[in-house]
């Protein structure tokens, strides 16, 4: 109940501040199992892409949140678990546990994921090289549709070190689904995926 209210409130705030416009350019919004992967420039990315999805998809799509940041305070933890239904990921490998295990569990239970394959926020115009998590997941779940996405403008809403967001129209462009080709090398695939995301930046 409180999570529902919070989610409506957040949606309202995000729409008022950014418009949270979704542009389904390469594929329609469809309830199939997908991995959305996007550029990452701000903590608000997660909220924005969540807000841009239609309600029906929002409930089956789980964003990936960095565990160290999003569990740092009880409020952040509550929002990411109860409202966003996020999957936590360790940014630093601890012991021999596979850091992708929570993602694998989520995909196995049929959820869609929102992934930021750069791993951390970038401050350049172009995204940093992608980490191999996306490749590993694509290899393990060939049936899941991979959808590139580009988030416009969010870094201007709330730059690093600032607390209050500035109103700025933002949008998320979803591109055509891509696939891991037969026998495609890890590096090639990651470069291709990154280019698919960059291509959307001026679409």
């Amino acid at each position: 109940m409180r999570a529902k209210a919070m989610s409506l409130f957040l949606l309202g705030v995000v729409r008022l501040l950014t418009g949270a416009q979704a542009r389904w350019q390469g594929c329609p919004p469809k309830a199939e199992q997908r991995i959305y992967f996007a550029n990452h420039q701000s903590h608000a990315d997660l909220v924005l892409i969540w807000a841009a999805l239609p309600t029906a998809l929002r409930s089956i799509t789980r964003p990936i949140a960095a565990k160290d940041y999003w569990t740092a305070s009880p409020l952040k933890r509550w929002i990411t678990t109860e409202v966003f239904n996020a999957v936590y990921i360790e940014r630093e490998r601890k012991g021999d546990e596979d850091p992708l295990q929570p993602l694998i569990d989520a995909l196995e239970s049929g959820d869609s994921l929102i992934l930021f394959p750069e791993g951390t926020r970038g401050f350049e115009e172009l995204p940093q090289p992608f980490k191999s998590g996306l490749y590993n997941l694509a290899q393990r779940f060939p049936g899941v549709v991979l959808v590139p996405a580009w988030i416009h403008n969010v870094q201007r809403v709330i730059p690093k070190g600032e607390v209050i967001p500035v109103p700025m129209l933002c949008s998320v462009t979803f591109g055509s689904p891509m696939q891991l080709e037969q026998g495609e090398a890890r590096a090639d695939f990651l470069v291709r995926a990154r280019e698919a995301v960059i291509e959307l930046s001026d679409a």
Partner: protein
Amino acid sequence: MTSFLRSLTPDQQVSLLFVVLFGLLTLATGVTLAMSLREKHPTEMPEPTRRGLKLQDYQSLLRTSWMMALVFWLAWAAGQGVATSLFALVSFLILREFISLSPTRRGDHRSLLLAFFIVLPLQYLLVWTEHFDLFTVFIPVYVFLAIPTVGALGNDPHRFLERNAKLQWGIMVCVYGMSHVPALLLLDFPGFDGKMAFLVFFLVLVVQTAMLVQHVVAHRLSQPVAPAISQSFHWRSWAAGVMAGGLLGAALAGFTPFKPLPAMAMALVAAMAGSFGHLVMKAIKRDRGVTHWGSAGRSVTGANGLLDRVDALCFAAPVFFHSVRWKFGL
């Protein structure tokens, strides 16, 4: 006719105005609907482009007019507080559109916060509390200094003048200009209590009519004055639009505190300011490489183009407001 109008209470007069307005809009919608039905006729299919596009133009214009009429009706029906907040919301939305298309840097964050969350509400608060002397100078005098000061404290000299100029412009057009519309509601004409909604209407109708006529006449002309900026600005279409606005103003004089001639003069001033303002905003849009602020152009931001619709008003309102106050010594 005039004596009948005078026998009504102000509220009844305003209601009558809205009835007439919504009637006209319904009529116009009916006509375009009929036109669009005819357009679909198979014999005309090979060459639908030019007429079809024109029709689309009219349809979008009509939609805007409906929206505006509804907003004004709501504003009038709900009282001054609501009216002022409604215009504040419009200001917020158009400033958001304006800023989204003007590149800012990280050092501008605080100035942007100042603009959106302090300057904008404060300006409308000044309107609401009728601090007329402060409200006309607050932005050009105080904010003019405050914005670049906060910007300079952001410690980023790169393109400093350009970035601040953009922000200043955004505030002037979207906040300062727009806030003069609800301010008209609070002007105090002796013996004209409760009827200031007419003046807002007068302004909006005159400006919209001038724009519409200019647009329609321009379709028949070639060689615009500044083709790199606007295809629809010819001196002849401009003159036609302004004249239409002036004549409408004179015709509407009975609803306003003005006599017909001053009404016409005020309408001419508003129509001129509006059409020039629209031209200026077009130049800014061309500079940014878009044709519309909204989705009709190549919008990456998902703006819905509210600023396209109200930009003429943003320029006409302060000029109109000032000339009315000056002329009538209010």
